[in-house]
């Protein structure tokens, strides 16, 4: 035997010290990386909190939460956040009405019906759709969808909740389709085989076996879609107008929380004014909203975790 590997390995044992230091320090580095996410959350909370407190020193929190009018400019400013919340919810509701059925249907098609090569093409195409900057969607809503809608709804004003809502929905479709499809394709094939072997059609396999089995993943994708809709900024800024209105009428112009924040950061409010601080209060509300949404999503996916 030309080389004595065993001995060589033995000699290299001197490396062991270095290795064991490495072995100890590496996890510390990774822990540090993991802590960044915690720091980010803390950073967001503090950033929002500090300025929000200043805001609530000027405006009572009761007024903020219960007021029905949002007009933070000029002499007769009023800071009732409800119109911004209803605006946000209105957009979210319309978006989900569009995105849920379409997204789920596409997911079912891709996961249960589509031939392999169709799936290979369609999924990336949907992902491109997801990657288009939202500002592009904004002008699409304003200059294409709104005029289209005006053909059907005679008096539809140029700014309304409907058009951006629909477009936000369109933007979310790929996300829901893709995530639900992931959830469905992780349902083991043995389950499909079991159902097919009983004489089920593809549709029955999809609706009675796969969808129930993937339900938690599907619901989680819905909720992520919801929080994406809540957080969407540019589409609504461009196409929904800037009128905070307490309304459920989808043909009216509204403003969302995100829309307001962008309006003020791009606008004229002077630093230190109540208006300036109000964006942090609105940001805080928005943050809490999405936080609740996400916690709900996590709860659901844990609670109804499928076990195969």
């Amino acid at each position: 035997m030309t080389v004595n590997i065993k001995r060589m390995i033995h000699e290299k044992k001197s490396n062991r010290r270095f290795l064991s230091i490495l072995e100890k320090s590496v996890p510390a580095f990774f822990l540090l990386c993991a802590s960044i996410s915690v720091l980010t959350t803390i950073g967001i909370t503090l950033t929002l909190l500090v300025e929000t407190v200043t805001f609530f020193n000027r405006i009572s929190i009761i007024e903020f939460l219960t007021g029905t009018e949002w007009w933070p400019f000029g002499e007769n400013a009023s800071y009732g956040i409800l119109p911004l919340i209803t605006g946000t919810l209105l957009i979210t509701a319309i978006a989900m009405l569009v995105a849920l059925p379409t997204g789920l249907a596409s997911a079912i098609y891709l996961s249960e019906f589509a031939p392999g090569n169709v799936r290979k093409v369609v999924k990336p195409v949907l992902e491109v759709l997801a990657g288009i900057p939202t500002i592009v969607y904004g002008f699409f809503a304003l200059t294409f969808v709104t005029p289209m809608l005006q053909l059907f709804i005679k008096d539809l004003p140029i700014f309304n909740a409907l058009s951006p809502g629909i477009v936000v929905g369109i933007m979310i479709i790929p996300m829901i389709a893709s995530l639900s499809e992931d959830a469905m394709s992780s349902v083991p094939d043995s389950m499909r085989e079991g159902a097919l072997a009983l004489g089920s059609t593809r549709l029955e396999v999809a609706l009675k076996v796969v969808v129930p089995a993937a339900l938690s993943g599907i619901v989680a994708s819905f909720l992520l879609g919801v929080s994406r809709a809540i957080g969407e900024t540019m589409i609504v800024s461009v196409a929904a107008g800037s009128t905070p209105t307490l309304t459920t009428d989808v043909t009216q112009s509204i403003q969302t929380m995100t829309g307001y924040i962008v309006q003020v950061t791009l606008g004229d409010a002077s630093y230190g004014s109540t208006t300036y601080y109000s964006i942090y209060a609105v940001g805080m509300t928005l943050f809490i909203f999405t936080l609740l949404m996400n916690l709900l999503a996590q709860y659901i996916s844990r609670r109804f975790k499928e076990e195969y």
Partner: protein
Amino acid sequence: MNLVDKQLVQRRRKKRLFSNRIMRQIFFSASVFGIVVLAVLLYRIFREGLPYLDIDFLTSFASRFPEEAGIKAAITGSVWLMAVTAPVSVVLGVGTAVYLEEYAKENMFTRFIRMNISNLAGVPSVVFGLLGLTVFVRLMEMGRSIIAGGFTMSLLILPIIVVASQEAIRAIPNSQYEASYAMGATKWQTIRRVVLPAALPGILTGGILALSRAIGETAPLLMIGALSFIAYLPENIWSGFTVLPIQIFNWTARPQEEFHLVASTGIIILLFILLLMNSVAVLIRHKYSKRY
């Protein structure tokens, strides 16, 4: 003894097969819907923007004359921004994922980190904008620099990369770990030489998709104060910068109709870059899928 009425089963089968066919069509149309919208969107953009697309457009700076306006500063700015965002977010994201998948003990802190990451994934980008403005631009005195923007974007896409990396790592079969440990390799050696190489395609795919999200984000950079006019190229990460979506946003807000068309040209460039990134991701995924 026959509880199953074969006749009934026979009759029902026709109906079932019929609804199967119908629903298949409906599901198919739903998938097509997204693609049709995409087609309409693209058609409009290309019709408006194509006439302005030429080499000059790529090599000149912004201008008050639509026909002279170019996108050089924005492209360079976006590239610089990605040059900061990509390494920062990938190192942090992969580090976090490795920690969670390989080292973390199942305790409160780990659960908290997990929860945190999925929460951050849902936080609106404007909120990240506020964070970036307050912490990076002001508190850390980075100003409206590439690095401030890059850090903000890194945090924004961090959760996406973490989740993608976690999945990539989880997909590595146990037998690979066993093979390595059975050779007397330590944990870190196993991670470095077996886990990370095997997870690389997944990490890259996730990373590219996350970056393509970052490259199209407008709101947080608007809040940080990325610039609208800049007629020179950034020198280092402390320089001011503009990015594609902001330049596009700016053009669309001009009174002159021609600028709106120029904006479409900008969108074409942005889409092209996105498409490029996506195809690289698809390619990687395609090349390396189904290896075990």
